[in-house]
Structures are given as C-alpha cells and as structure tokens.
C-alpha cells in the first residue's frame, strides 16, 4: 500500500475535478499538453494501472483517433495539405484534432485516478459530502453491477453463436435485428435482478433513511488538505494564464 492510495477518495475527486475542468476550459495547445502530462504524472503517482486501462479501451482509442481525423478534415481554415485546390488538412483542423485528443487523454488519465479507490469508499465520500443517500446508493449499485453486465454481454454473444449464427457475416438488416435480440436478455435480466435485489434488501431490513450510521467513516488528513489546496491553486493559475 503506498501513501497515495491512503488519500481520501474525496481528495482524488477534487484532483479529477480540477484536471477535467482544465481539460474543458483551456484551449491553448501548449497548456493542454502540460495538463495532459500533469494528469499522466498524477495517475502514475497514484500507481493507476494505465496499461490495463489502455488495453480495455483499445477500440475506444481507435474511435477517438478516427473522430480526430474526421474533425481535422472537415474544419475550414488555412490549408496545410491540399490536392487540386481542395484543402484536405487545415491548420485549424489539425489544431482541433490535437485539442480533442489531449482532452480525451486528460479525461482517461484522471478517470484512472478514481479507479485507485474502491467504489465503496468513493460512495462514502459522496455521502459525507451530503449527496442524497438514495442517489449515492444507486451509483454504488450501478458500479457493482457493471462487471456482471459485461459478463452477461459476453455470455449472450457466446450463446447466440452456439445457436448457429455467424455474427460477423450477416447482412446489415439482420444484424440490426440480431442486436435487438442481444439487448433483450440484458434488459429483462437487469430488471429481474433489480427486483430480486430489492426484495432481498427489504427482507434484511434495508430502508433508504436520511440519517444513517456507517462502519466506514472517512477523515481528511493534513496531506489531503495540502493536496486539495495545491490542486485548486494550480488549476486557478492555469486558468489565469489561459485567459490572459
């Protein structure tokens, strides 16, 4: 366990909030690069598993690169690369594409910081920040059910192939109707699971009362205050430089 892992999850949320605010508010390419680098350093300091994250979102990264390419082609401005008088790439377009990629990198790096805390402690942090318990509990359940949903999607894909359907080589019309069939067990399964869970919880005396006691109580340390102060201060400095 590193010292960074022992930080209060609310401190991590503040860091992520600062980084993502900067990612949205700043337009200058050099500043955005610096923020992306800062997010990477922060994620590394928190020992976030960046390799695993990139492996998981590989297809999303390809999609982001494709969007960036489309954006760079369809943005008008001073031509950078042209063929027969038609501008294929413009300076503005490339700049926009780079901004988009850097912003996404900032979002991904900061999201990995959150991942270094357990969902339980993040929810507890939100509750202690006076987020209504119902909403915090719903978010906690959502996080808990996500891996199960992923597993169910995988199982459905296996089961439908075992029914003799070649999902990669069917015409587009049939493919659309196939997706509706794949969606069906997920929807029904989720509703049934939610119903069973709510019955089981009520049977064990669970109610969404406003006043609750919790076994897990989070406490800020001096280090938390210090890191939050510096995060907000750095964010303010970046914003001032950016809008000067």
């Amino acid at each position, binding site marked *: 366990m590193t010292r960074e892992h022992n930080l209060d999850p609310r401190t991590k949320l503040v860091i992520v909030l600062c980084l993502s605010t900067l990612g949205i508010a700043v337009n200058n390419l050099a500043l955005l690069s610096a923020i992306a680098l800062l997010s990477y350093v922060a994620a590394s300091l928190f020992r976030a598993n960046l390799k695993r994250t990139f492996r998981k979102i590989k297809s999303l990264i390809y999609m982001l690169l494709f969007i960036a390419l489309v954006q760079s082609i369809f943005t008008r401005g001073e031509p950078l690369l042209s063929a027969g008088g038609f501008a294929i790439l413009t300076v503005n377009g490339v700049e926009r594409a780079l901004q988009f990629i850097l912003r996404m990198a900032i979002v991904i790096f900061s999201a990995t910081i959150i991942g270094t805390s357990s969902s339980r402690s993040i929810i507890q942090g939100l509750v202690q920040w006076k987020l209504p318990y119902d909403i915090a509990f719903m978010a906690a359940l959502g996080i808990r059910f996500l891996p199960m949903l992923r597993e169910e999607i995988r*199982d*459905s894909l*296996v*089961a*439908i*192939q*075992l*029914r*003799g*359907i*070649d*999902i990669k080589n*069917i015409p587009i019309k*049939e493919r659309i*109707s*196939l997706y509706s*069939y*794949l969606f*069906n*067990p997920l929807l*029904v*399964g989720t509703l*049934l699971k939610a119903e069973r869970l709510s019955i089981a919880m009520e049977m064990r005396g669970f109610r969404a009362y406003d006043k609750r006691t919790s076994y897990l109580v989070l406490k800020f340390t001096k280090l938390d205050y210090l890191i939050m102060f510096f995060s907000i201060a750095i964010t303010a400095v970046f914003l001032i430089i950016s809008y000067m």
Partner: protein
Amino acid sequence: MHYIEIRDVDFEYEKGKSVFQNLSLNIDKNETIALMGPNGSGKTTLGKLMAGILKPTKGQVNVFSRDTRDIPLHEIGLRIGYLFQNPEKQFFANTVYDELGFVMKIKGYDEEYIKEKVEEKLEFFQLKGLVNHSPFLLSQGEKQRLAIAAVLMNEPEYLILDEPTTGLDKKRKDMLLNLLFMLKNQGIGMTIISHDRRFVERICSRFIYISRGEIQYDERA
C-alpha cells in the same frame, strides 16, 4: 478418429490457478455420457471446452477432427447443441414462439417453413399453450424444455447438457428422461453433466467421474 478428442489439455481461468492438467479424453458420437463430480471439480469447464466455448491453455481439443481454436463457434453450434446450466442465459426473444423461430428468421428461412418447424417443437416439448409467454417468466421446468427445444431447432448431432435436472421435480425429470430417450433413439449422442446419479444411471452408458480436475474413473455400463 473420435468425435471429440481432448489431448493433454491444461486449462486455467487465472494464471497459476490450474483447473485441468494434462487431461485426455475421447468421446464418440453415439455415446450417452454422464459427467459427474462434486461442485468445483471442473465439470462445466470440461463441457465448455468440449463445445469450444473455452479454449485450452495447453494441449488440444478436437471436435469433428478440427482444433476448436480453428472453428468459429457458430459452426460448432450447428452440430453440437449446448444447454447452459442456467437456461435463461440462452433466451433472447420476447415470446416462446419467437425464441424458437428467431434464428431461422435471421438466417432468412421462409416464414411458412419456420412456422412448421416451430409448431413441431412446441408440440413435442408440450409448450403449445405458452407460445405468447415471455421465456424469462416461465417455470424452471418450462424454461428447461424451451431451452432444449431451441437448441434442437438446429438439428444438432450431439448434445452437451449442463445440469438439465436442476429445479425439476420427479414428474418433470421423468418427462425430460423420456424426451432424452427419444433423442437418443434418433441417433443423437449426448454428454449429461449432472449431480443426479439416479437420473443419469437410467439413460447413460458411460460414466466419467472427475474430481479436482482429474478423471477419477471412466466406466462403461
């Protein structure tokens, strides 16, 4: 050549946590096999390896003389029917009728032909009164029957049934047994993964018992 050949197979879900080591087994098409063993012994994993759902970490699983690593799952699905432990896992449609017919519909079969095939299965599996019911809201016995009927729509030559008697009372078990006998008489081979010794003893001719990932005995009746 055997129908399913498991050759020196190692399998692990997580690195370092081996389920099988050096497992070998041959299965012929006309056999009715009982795969038994305690919870966590690897019965379902072995069934999934046989159906090509899981691929071995080491060694080879050959189905109809081809390595399962090289056969797309849908090709195996056309010849081997796999019944999941939880039949709900293989339901996709909103009604019993659609559940039986949607695969043929996606494959572009004629509506009349689909109707004929679906009605044949509804009759055979005593599901006629449930055509417009949601598969997800049927009783356990009805779900099992529908799942088997759906698997049989492809007319497979071999079946792998994972715990088909779970949640069935004696009457329903007898019904299932009669059905399996009918399929056996039609020349369909099967592997039944089960805890229910009395059930499998009535239909199976070969009994494989596995424990901790090893075959403890493999006997023919």
